């Protein structure tokens, strides 16, 4: 291998970061807390796993401060599967992000599910080799994260509830706002950028292209195959499933069913077969009965 050829490599470009997000479209990313769960997820057809210490439902139940996972646990999961392994750092905790990058994590989720480490600023994601995914509730939030370097966006939903209503609301909000931008005359875009709190250049780009410059996935409350297909039909390009699988009665079966549902999201007959006899879904919490303190989607600035 010659030196000259080696030097032509340009590692970790924006294109390789967004590229991995592109490769993850049309599938399911599952939260796992052990190597055994990671294997179950991979065998069910998950295209990536999210390694974390507790699924969001347990983080809710246990309370306290939720942090980055133990590196040993992440390594165990990396050794157990060949598919990409993602992991979460706290909002603004760039040292946790540095540690995850050093571990060779394929995608870092700067996640509101963990307790924020900074109540004003997020991680400057452009300065990392590893790609980042961040949550959003609306277009302004999505574009602030992309402006900081996120190579993938996901709706926040309301993690750990098994209630899909917030994920639907966030996805509809983002797509409505994108659609609206396309109908505005150019002189209005600066004021829109100000109102949304979004970078002007990104606003102009989206007004032209009609889509986000990075893949747009969905997360937070997906518990059934029908939920997953709903998010895809609404325009999500893939789904994250957190507590919905391993908090259900028959995780292996439900995991596979959700994968199949995403593959056949527009075929109701197939979805009817896929949804049958899966055992109990996670119990769930009705988001409308929660008070503001219990909601985590509000974390992020």
């Amino acid at each position, binding site marked *: *291998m*010659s030196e000259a*050829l*080696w030097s*032509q*490599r*340009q*590692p*970790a*470009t924006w*294109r*390789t*970061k967004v*590229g*991995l997000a*592109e*490769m*993850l*479209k*049309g*599938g399911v990313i599952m939260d796992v807390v052990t190597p055994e769960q990671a294997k179950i997820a*991979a065998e069910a*057809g*998950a*295209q*990536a796993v999210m390694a974390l210490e507790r699924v969001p439902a347990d983080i809710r139940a246990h309370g306290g401060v939720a942090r980055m996972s133990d590196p040993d646990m992440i390594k165990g999961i990396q050794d157990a599967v*060949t*598919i*990409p392994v993602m992991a979460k750092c706290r909002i603004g905790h760039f040292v946790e992000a540095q540690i995850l*990058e050093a571990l*060779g*994590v*394929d*995608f870092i989720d700067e996640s509101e599910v963990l307790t924020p480490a900074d109540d004003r600023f997020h991680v400057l994601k452009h300065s990392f*080799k*590893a*790609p980042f995914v961040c949550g959003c509730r609306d277009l302004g939030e999505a574009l602030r994260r992309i402006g900081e370097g996120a190579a993938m966006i996901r709706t926040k939903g309301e993690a750990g509830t098994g209630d899909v209503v917030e994920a639907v609301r966030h996805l509809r909000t983002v797509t409505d706002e994108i659609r609206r931008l396309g109908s505005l005359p150019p002189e209005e875009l600066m004021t829109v950028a100000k109102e949304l709190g979004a970078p002007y250049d990104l606003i102009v780009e989206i007004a032209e292209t009609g889509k986000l410059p990075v893949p747009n996935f969905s997360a937070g409350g997906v518990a059934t195959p029908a939920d997953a297909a709903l998010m895809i039909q609404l325009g999500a390009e893939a789904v994250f499933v957190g507590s919905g699988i391993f908090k259900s009665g028959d995780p292996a079966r439900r995991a596979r069913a959700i*994968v*199949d549902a995403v*593959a*056949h999201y527009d075929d109701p007959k197939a979805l009817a077969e896929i949804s049958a006899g899966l055992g109990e879904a996670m119990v769930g919490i009705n988001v409308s009965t929660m008070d503001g303190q219990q909601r985590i989607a509000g974390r992020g600035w």
Partner: protein
Amino acid sequence: MTIGVISFQGDFQRHIDRLASVGATVEPVRTLPALGRVDAVVIPGGESTTIGMLLDRFGMLTALRDRIRDGLPVFATCAGTILLADDIANSTQPRIGGLDITVRRNAYGRQVDSFEADLAVSPEWSDLGLRDCDSSEATDVDLPVRGVFIRAPMIVRTGESVRVLMSFEGHPVLVQAGAILAATFHPEMTTDLRIHRYFRDVVAAGQTVRSAL
């Protein structure tokens, strides 16, 4: 002539967009009947285990294998190339096979090691009909192709029937065997249409032969 793109998982939309840009009729393929309707197939990048599993689950793995054996033109990138390989080092994952190569998955490292590099266009590659493209695009011919390698596999062995069209660091990155074209990188991640155009021409050439028979 319709080119089908296996559209379960991965960057299938990028392939659909590129093929449309070179004037091909494209159809996403997610079912056995859809597979039966197309004259050529693209297997995109993504996760090879996931795509292989879904193809198997929906009865398409065997069907694809049979049609490829009968001469169906195929263009595979990254995960698609893994699925076409007769031999995948250290893996028993479901596969289509049909291309006499050995690949090693994630051979360049994890995502943080993903990279871009310029790939030289050899004179041999220029001869593969590329100079016959629309004259307005002929200036492209000798420019390097920008290779986008994402958790890429490495082709570590090629059989006698396999022609190496492009290499990087001593390993083949674009190979052809009959109507099978396979890349370890992602031409669909750039706006350079040369390789998709080349595949379109491979498909068209096969059509001509078939209708002459």
